[in-house]
């Protein structure tokens, strides 16, 4: 009689104990270990580092297709936009200039307005590619041997590690190296004028850098100096305006000098200047146009 009064509660108790045991096994005794993952699963900060590394590697190889394949492994919908955004963040955080320039160049190249580079990292735009005779086409990793594929599968199913949902083996093709270019002539100041534009909201030094074919050139480093200070900025961070565009906000009362980091002419004595218009007086922008002869 007494056992009958207990009812079916012992079954529920067993069920709960079973669930608890399953979770303890899954979370404590043999927790999940991440192995054989793809770059798309990386944490955001690691993705940023990975993306920067892709960009710097692109500076060396100039192989846009290879960079594109690598970026695709990160699973980003808009790699060019991500690169441009990361370049701005890197610039703001004071990251190395080579990293900012690499991110900018690769972003511009992916945007279709290719900023082609030579092996010294100097950006050149719209030049005729010169094939490099000593570079051989890179073999595709897709040619991976069966043994390697089997090794990958063996690793992922090994009893030493518990893996569920292991990604299937999809070898990453590495495309061949693209031709490199030779550097061109220095940029020269073509035009300097005060632009009265109410919409900018602040006094800007607006720089536009164009190549010999008058195409915008991204990734150009610009140095702005003033009494007791100096700053650097790059073209290509505002692709919605132009890939060859860069700007710098001026402070009233300060006199600035502007020069491209690659050298050439210095533009002196840039100060905040007033414009007069319908709503009254407002700050104008200094627009500087550098062109490759």
């Amino acid at each position, binding site marked *: 009689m007494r056992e009958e009064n207990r009812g079916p509660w012992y079954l529920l108790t067993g069920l709960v104990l079973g*669930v608890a045991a399953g979770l303890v096994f899954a979370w404590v005794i043999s927790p999940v270990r991440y192995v054989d*993952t793809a770059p798309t699963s990386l944490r955001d900060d690691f993705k940023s580092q990975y993306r920067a590394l892709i960009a*710097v590697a692109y500076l060396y190889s100039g192989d846009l297709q290879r960079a594109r394949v690598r970026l695709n492994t990160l699973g980003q919908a808009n790699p060019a936009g991500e690169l441009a955004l990361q370049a701005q963040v890197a610039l703001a955080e004071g990251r190395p200039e080579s990293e900012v320039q690499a991110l900018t160049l690769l972003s511009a190249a992916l945007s279709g307005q290719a900023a082609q580079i030579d092996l010294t990292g100097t950006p050149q735009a719209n030049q005729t590619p010169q094939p490099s005779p000593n570079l051989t086409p890179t073999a595709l990793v897709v040619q991976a041997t069966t043994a390697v594929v089997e090794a990958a599968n063996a690793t992922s199913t090994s009893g030493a590690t518990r893996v569920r*949902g292991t990604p299937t083996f999809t070898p990453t093709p590495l495309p061949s190296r693209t031709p490199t270019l030779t550097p061109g002539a220095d940029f020269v100041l073509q035009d300097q004028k005060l632009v009265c534009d109410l919409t900018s909201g602040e006094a800007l030094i607006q720089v536009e850098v164009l190549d010999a074919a008058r195409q915008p050139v991204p990734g150009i480093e610009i140095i702005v100096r003033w009494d007791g200070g100096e700053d650097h900025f790059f073209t290509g961070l505002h692709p919605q305006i132009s890939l060859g565009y860069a700007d710098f906000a001026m402070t009233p009362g300060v006199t600035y000098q502007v020069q491209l980091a690659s050298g050439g002419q210095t533009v002196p004595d840039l100060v905040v200047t007033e414009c007069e218009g319908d709503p009254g007086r407002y700050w104008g922008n200094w627009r500087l146009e550098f062109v490759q002869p």
Partner: protein
Amino acid sequence: MSRWTKFLIAVILGAAGALFYGWVVNPVEYVDTAPDSLRFDYKTDYVLMVAEAYQVENSLGLAARRLALLGSDPPLETVTQAVNTATQIGYDLADLALMRSLAEALQTWNPNQEAPAP
């Protein structure tokens, strides 16, 4: 059927249900992982990227810090493993040469002489 048998069956059903939930209904998603969990071919390509970047930046310290993301092995060992894998997979000779060049540079690298990172 005894009560103990029924009880054990309930335990097994509970465990099976938990595993079904964990593996089928709500399986593990690979998110927020670290580079050391990357599959071997991605790791190899990562090392190649480090070797390419080294040619641009010429900084062994930076290369070593990047390689450290792949695990706790010494940088030289990481690159050596990657060279072996790349050879097996059939990487281009130029890429292999880049990685070997990085390995050679790392043989003489002394982390204690490295300037602090910015």
